[in-house]
Structure formats: C-alpha cells, structure tokens
C-alpha cells in the first residue's frame, strides 16, 4: 500500500516491512525481550532496505485468442464458453470429427434418468461448427509451441483429408463404391467401414474422409473409384499436409482419455472370446445408429444374451495396471444395466461383480433403482478367470469378499474398463513443456485447489486428460478452464521480475542451475544460463545451487542475505543477546510466524526471523557462515515437504539440513543447532515442538 502511495507521488519508494507486532510484541515473554528482538529485526531490515534496487516490471498485453486442443466434450464446452464471451478460439482435433469418446455413447447417465447423449454427440458439436468465433481444425496435430510474453505461437499440421469440404455433400456414393473394407475403430471394431468413410452418421463436420492407411490409391497406387464416382468432384488426392501457424494468448488442453485395453490382462479373456466386450462396445451395440442398429445381441452368434455379467474395475484400482479409480465406470455399468432391463431385454439376468459401488452423489438413486426395483444382482468380489466350458458357454469364476469361490454362467460379459491417458499425451506434454503425473495424465498445478492450471502459466488442462471423471464434471471443469483462460488473455502480463541475474565472470556454464530449476525457466547458452522471465518464479533455487555464486536473485542476493545475518548478529553482540537466525520462506514460513503472533504463542525471543522468497534459496554455506559468525542456531521455517509453493524448495532445504547435521555429527559438532520446520501456516504446534529443542543458553536478562 505504501509503495502504491509513493509511486503516486512520483517517488520510487521501496518498502521493507518489519512485523514487530506479530513477531515481537505478541510472542515474547517480556518487554525487554520484545524490544531487543525488534531492534535486531530492524537491523536486518535496514540492511535489506539499503540494497533494495528498483524492480523491473514487465507489462505486455496478451493476445485475445485461445487454442483448445481436443474436440471432446471438454474442448467443445471450453470453446463455446470462450467464443460466446467474444474470444477467438482455435479448436484443434486430431481425429476427423469432434465429439470425442462421448460421441460413442448411446445414453449418458444422469440423476434419476438415463439421458440420450444428444448434447455431447450432436448439438454442442454443431454449435461449435456454426460459431463464427471458433475456427475448427479437425484432423490436425500440434507440432510446435513457442512462448512469447503475449502468449504462444503454435504450429499446427493439417493432415490431408483428400476431400474438398466445400464440395462434399455427404451423399455417400464414394463410400458405397469403395472396394476396401476395414474394421471401424469408431464402432470399436464391431463393424466394418470403407477406406473412404464418415466416422459416425451424426458427426460434425458432416463430411467424408479418406483413410490413407487403407485406401488403395495410397497403399497400392491403383484405385481411383471414388474420384470417378463423386458427382461433385469433391475428392482431391493431391492434397498435402499443410502447416498453419496461429498466435494465441492461452492454451487449453482437453485431449481426453482412452478406454483401457483389457486384453493386456489375460484373466478377463478379452480378445480370446468374442462375447466379452467392453462397456463402450456395449454402448455401440445399444446405439440405434450403431453397428447392429440398436439390437443388443451377442457378437459371436447374433443371439439375444439372457445372462449378462458386468465386471467392474478392469484396469483400475489394480496396483498392477492402474491404481487409480476411474470414477465413471460404476455408474456407467449401472446405467447400462438399467437400460437393458427397461428397454432392451427385460428378462435378462444381470450380475455386476464389483469392488465398491461408487455411485457417488445423486447417482446413488440409479444404484437403488437397479438393485431394488430391477433386480440387478450385485456381488462384491474379485474375478479369478473368465473361461469357456466344453459346451462353449462362458463362465465367470470369482471369489467373493468372504473368500468363497463361485461361478456364474454368462451369455455376454461386459468389462467396465478404466479410462487411461491417451498415447500421444507424452509427446504433447513435451511440446507444451508441461508435466505428466505418475499415471500419465497431465499434471495439474495442485490436485486440490487448482486442478486446471499447469506449471506453465497460460496453459490449462480440463476434462479426462487431467484424470478420470464423468461428463458433467468434465463440462464444469471445461467452463472453469474457459474462465481462467479468458481472465488470462484479457489481463496484461504484469510481472515483477525477480529473475536471477548472471555474473558472467564467474559462470562456468556448469548447467547445474538449468537442471535444478523447478520451472524449466533456464536454458544454457554460450554466455551461460539464460532466463525465461515468464517462467521464472523467483524461487532462487538456481542461486542456491550455483556453487560459484554466479547467479543471484534480484533483491535477494546471497551476499545480501549474509549481510543481513551479520547485521543481526552484530546487533545481538552489542546487546549481549544470543540469537537464532530463523530463515522463513515468504509463503508458509512467514505466515506461520504471523500465525504464532495471532495465537499469542510465546516462543524463544532469541529467534529472529528473516524472510526469504523460498527455502530453496538457502545454501549450506549460509548456515555455516551464520554459525561461524556467532549465531547460536539456524532455523529454517518453510512449507510442508510435498507442498512447497515452489516445488522443490522445502525438500532440498530439508535435505540440506539433514546433510549438514550429518556432517556435524561426524565432526563432533552440534547438529542440534540446525533445525528445519516444514509445516503449513497453521501448524504452530509443530513450530513450537521443534524450537523448544534448540539448545540456546538463556540470554543475559
């Protein structure tokens, strides 16, 4: 506030605060102690204020356009939200049609009812198609992304569709005459399609496309039938891949996920027996526009299945494959069971083998309906094996939760498979410089409070590419991503730059800073590391790791820190006071010290806090120097290990403390003088637990 007032007067005032109420008055035993502590803190602050330089502020207007990668429900919703707010949107989809996995669904589950999937399959995609603010780029791939202060420059490769979209009228003559027949991946292999095809009858955009991997024109260089037969001359074999470049202010990644391939687990027998299918295949079978025209039949012989067994958690909640829970599959299975019972084969016997039924929220009502009204049988247990007996009928062998083994005969076995990350997500993550989590989904900034942002400002994730979720959660997350992206692009990039400054004379280009930067903000050039000022968060890890002190954070140099420490100790010596230097990170550490004040918790008045951006900036040398200069102890106060606001700061600091304590032990010194508190801001108790063990002979009072 003061800073603002000063700049209004045209004075560039730099302010260093000393919080003597919370840090001194409220936490010390006596007036004298408090006063002394305040003196010490002010000494350090003066030292800091002396060297505060002017901060550079970068101000750039971002580009008011957004790139959305992935045309599933998430990508569509995000695009529509952004477009309706007036932003230009580029929607890039790798397949020829938008709609994503959801376009394969027959019905979606909803509270109390089973809805038709129209919105995700057709009306929303159509809205996208018709929206003038959205540029739809289907059958495209992202090849390169470059960062600029105003946003991103994205290179997109448009794969050739070999069809002139302006001329194709979707008549289908070409497909009729095409001689090449292949399995239709859109129907999950349940039907065949031609090499020139339309993925699903209701897709957007409603145009045919040629699959060059199977088209005889390309594979054998022989066939031209479709070109000859097309009355509109819409087929153009000469199309080549094109590269386009777009400039956007933000990127939303919504690439979605895939169904787990159950053939990798032999016990389920998928791939071995024809009548074992996945839930998504079941959706296709029930879809009136699907391969069987909406008749639910066995794949092998076309008969009505009367005994249906659904197996849950295939490829999820399984430490061998995917330990996470896929969330949607319980409700999905129950929804399909209800549909079969009410609309397809009411006489069917349906058994669901489950670990836990996770119909959370109001989906519970579907579970009750299936179990109590429709008589769907639920068995808690694990599948041992699915096999065929001599007569050729399928049997599911299982162990229930009491340890009893049982078998159920089945006409049709449906596997509720996990959602798994898409194959190409790793490549995309590399292009975008974002991270994948341990399962291969895109990693969010924080799983609890910001599961949309990523480590790169301006790149957001939503939908199932972030983790499994159902459609409504996906849509909510997509709208939320749209909010964040919109706010991001309308805002100016206004950043106080606290990037490291390099002293070329001392830089040996050893690259340690580059590999240790948690934000990948540094790259090694011939002159030494160069900083991407946008990515840099000013945590100071590079300054700490640089052995030769060649790189330093503006206003938080190593030298300054040492001077501050020395100033405190000098002042303490003058006051004949003992002193423990407490280095507190600006986040949890400083807040924790504040909290101690708010609670009026008394602690040793010898503890003098110095605020630093992150514990990562501390190096072992600082600790040694402080002790060497006469401090009675060094205390590091920072975030919990896994929850450092700068990724690695707390962890490395903890390890530094451990290392130096080990060295001290070896040398017979005083490991107990170096301590670290890793606690969130409210855990004042943890602070007190640690500090009460610091051996400081009581100061002269």
């Amino acid at each position, binding site marked *: 506030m003061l800073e603002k007032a000063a700049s209004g007067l045209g004075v560039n005032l730099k302010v260093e605060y000393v919080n003597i109420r919370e840090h001194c008055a409220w936490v010390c035993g006596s007036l004298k102690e408090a006063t002394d502590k305040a003196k010490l803190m002010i000494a350090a602050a003066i030292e800091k204020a002396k060297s505060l330089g002017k901060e550079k502020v970068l101000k750039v207007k971002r580009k008011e356009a957004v790139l959305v990668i992935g045309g599933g429900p998430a990508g569509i919703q995000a695009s529509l939200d952004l477009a309706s707010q007036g932003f230009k949107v580029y929607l890039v989809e790798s397949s020829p049609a938008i709609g994503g996995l959801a376009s394969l669904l*027959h*019905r979606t589950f*909803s*509270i*109390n*009812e*089973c*809805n*038709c*999937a*129209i919105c995700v*399959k*057709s*009306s929303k995609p159509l809205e996208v198609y018709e929206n003038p603010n959205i540029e739809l780029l289907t059958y495209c791939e992202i090849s390169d992304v470059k960062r600029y202060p105003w946003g991103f420059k994205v290179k997109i490769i448009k794969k050739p569709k070999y069809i002139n979209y302006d001329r194709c009228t*979707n008549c*289908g003559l070409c497909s009729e005459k095409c001689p090449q027949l292949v399995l239709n991946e859109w129907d999950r292999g349940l039907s065949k399609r031609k090499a020139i095809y*339309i993925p699903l*009858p*209701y897709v957007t955009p*409603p145009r045919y496309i040629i699959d060059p991997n199977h088209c005889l024109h390309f594979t054998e260089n022989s066939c031209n039938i479709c070109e000859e037969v097309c009355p509109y001359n819409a087929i153009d074999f000469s199309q080549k891949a094109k590269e386009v470049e777009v400039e956007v202010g933000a990127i939303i990644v919504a690439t979605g996920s895939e169904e787990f391939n159950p053939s990798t687990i032999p016990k389920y027998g998928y791939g071995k027996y024809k009548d074992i299918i996945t839930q998504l295949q079941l959706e296709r079978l029930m*879809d*009136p*526009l699907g391969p069987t*025209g*909406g008749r639910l039949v066995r794949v092998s012989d076309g008969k009505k299945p009367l005994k249906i067994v659904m197996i849950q958690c295939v490829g999820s909640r399984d430490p061998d494959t995917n330990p996470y829970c896929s969330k949607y599959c319980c409700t999905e299975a129950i929804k399909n069971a209800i549909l079969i019972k009410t609309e397809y084969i009411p006489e069917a016997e349906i058994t669901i083998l489950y670990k836990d039924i996770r119909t959370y929220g109001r989906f519970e009502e579907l579970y009750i309906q299936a179990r109590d009204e429709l008589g769907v049988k639920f068995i808690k247990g694990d599948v041992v094996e699915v096999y065929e007996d001599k007569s050729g009928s399928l049997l599911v062998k299982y162990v229930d939760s009491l340890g009893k083994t049982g078998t159920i005969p089945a006409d049709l076995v449906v596997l509720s498979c996990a959602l798994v990350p898409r194959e190409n997500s790793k490549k995309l993550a590399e292009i975008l410089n974002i991270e994948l989590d341990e399962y291969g989904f895109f990693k969010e900034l924080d799983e609890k409070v910001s599961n949309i942002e990523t480590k790169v400002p301006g790149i957001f994730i939503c939908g199932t590419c972030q983790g499994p979720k159902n459609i409504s959660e996906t849509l909510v997350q997509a709208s939320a991503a749209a909010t964040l992206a919109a706010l991001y692009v309308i805002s100016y990039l206004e950043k106080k730059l606290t990037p490291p400054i390099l002293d070329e004379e001392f830089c040996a280009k050893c690259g340690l800073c580059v590999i240790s930067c948690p934000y990948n903000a540094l790259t090694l050039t011939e002159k030494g590391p160069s900083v991407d000022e946008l990515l840099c968060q000013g945590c100071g890890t590079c300054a700490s790791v640089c052995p030769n002190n060649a790189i330093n954070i503006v206003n938080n140099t190593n030298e300054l820190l040492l001077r501050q420490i020395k100033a405190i100790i000098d002042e303490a010596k003058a006051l004949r006071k003992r002193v423990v230097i407490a280095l507190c990170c600006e986040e949890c550490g400083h807040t924790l010290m504040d909290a101690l004040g708010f609670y009026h918790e008394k602690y040793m008045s010898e503890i003098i806090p110095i605020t630093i951006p992150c514990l990562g900036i501390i190096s072992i040398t600082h600790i040694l120097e402080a002790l060497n200069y006469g401090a009675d102890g060094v205390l590091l106060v920072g975030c919990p290990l896994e929850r450092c606001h700068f990724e690695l700061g707390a962890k490395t600091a903890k390890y530094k403390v451990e290392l130096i304590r080990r060295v001290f032990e070896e040398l017979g010194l005083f490991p107990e003088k170096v301590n670290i508190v890793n606690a969130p801001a409210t855990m004042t108790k943890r602070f007190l637990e640690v500090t009460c063990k610091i051996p400081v002979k009581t100061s002269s009072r």
Partner: protein
Amino acid sequence: MKKFKPLILAFLCENSAYRAIDVASMRKVSYLESIRVIKVPCSGRISSTHILQAFSNGADGVIIFGCLKGGCNYVDGNLRAQLRVKKLKKTLDIIGLGGERLKMHLVGFCEAGKILECMNNFYMKIREIGPNPLKSKGGV
C-alpha cells in the same frame, strides 16, 4: 374397396425427434410418405387445440414425439405434453374419435430407428382402425 391410406400428422420436437430423423436420413431411411411432419420447439408447445384441429382437418391420426424423460431442454415440457395427451385421449374416446388415434412417445436423439418403428406401427394401427369418421361426415 380402395386400400385405405391413412393421413397422419406427426409433431416432432426439434431437439430430439426432428434431428433424429435428419441424422437417420443420412443412412437413407426415412418415414412413410403419407406422414406429414411439423416441427415444434418443444412437445410442450402442442396444445389440445392443435391436435383437435388436426383431426377436424382430416388427419386420421396424430403422433407426437418428445424428448426422453429428463432430457427436455425446457425442464418438463415433454412431461406436460404427455399429461395433456393422456387427458385428451379420454376426451377423444368420449367424443367418439377414439383415443388410440392419438399417441405420444418419448424418444432420444439417437433413436431414429425407434421413431420410425413407432411411426410405422402407428400407421398400421390407424389403417386397422379406419379413416377419421369426421371425414365421412363431411366435418372437414
């Protein structure tokens, strides 16, 4: 006697049934030529008057398609229409037209097959029932 060819009026909700028919037509299937189709924003828009008007103008049957339960764009328009149809059927019974000349189905967007099947069945049924008695009485 010349084979009776019923004249049927179908009201299609533009959010589900109308679009479903459109999509299905890509597969080269469509409804019978003697069914006349009117699209409405919501099945809830169709009032009893319209239905009665159709009969008085010579329709042999009226069939209405609305969205699935819970899928209505307008919360419960489809259910209101269903209720209306139920009441009107009784009225038709009373006035002698016969409630079976009026039918309502709730269908999903993907269920074009079902829609066409319903239309066909209805057509066959009306053919069994015979022509709209109002016509012969010259009520039209």
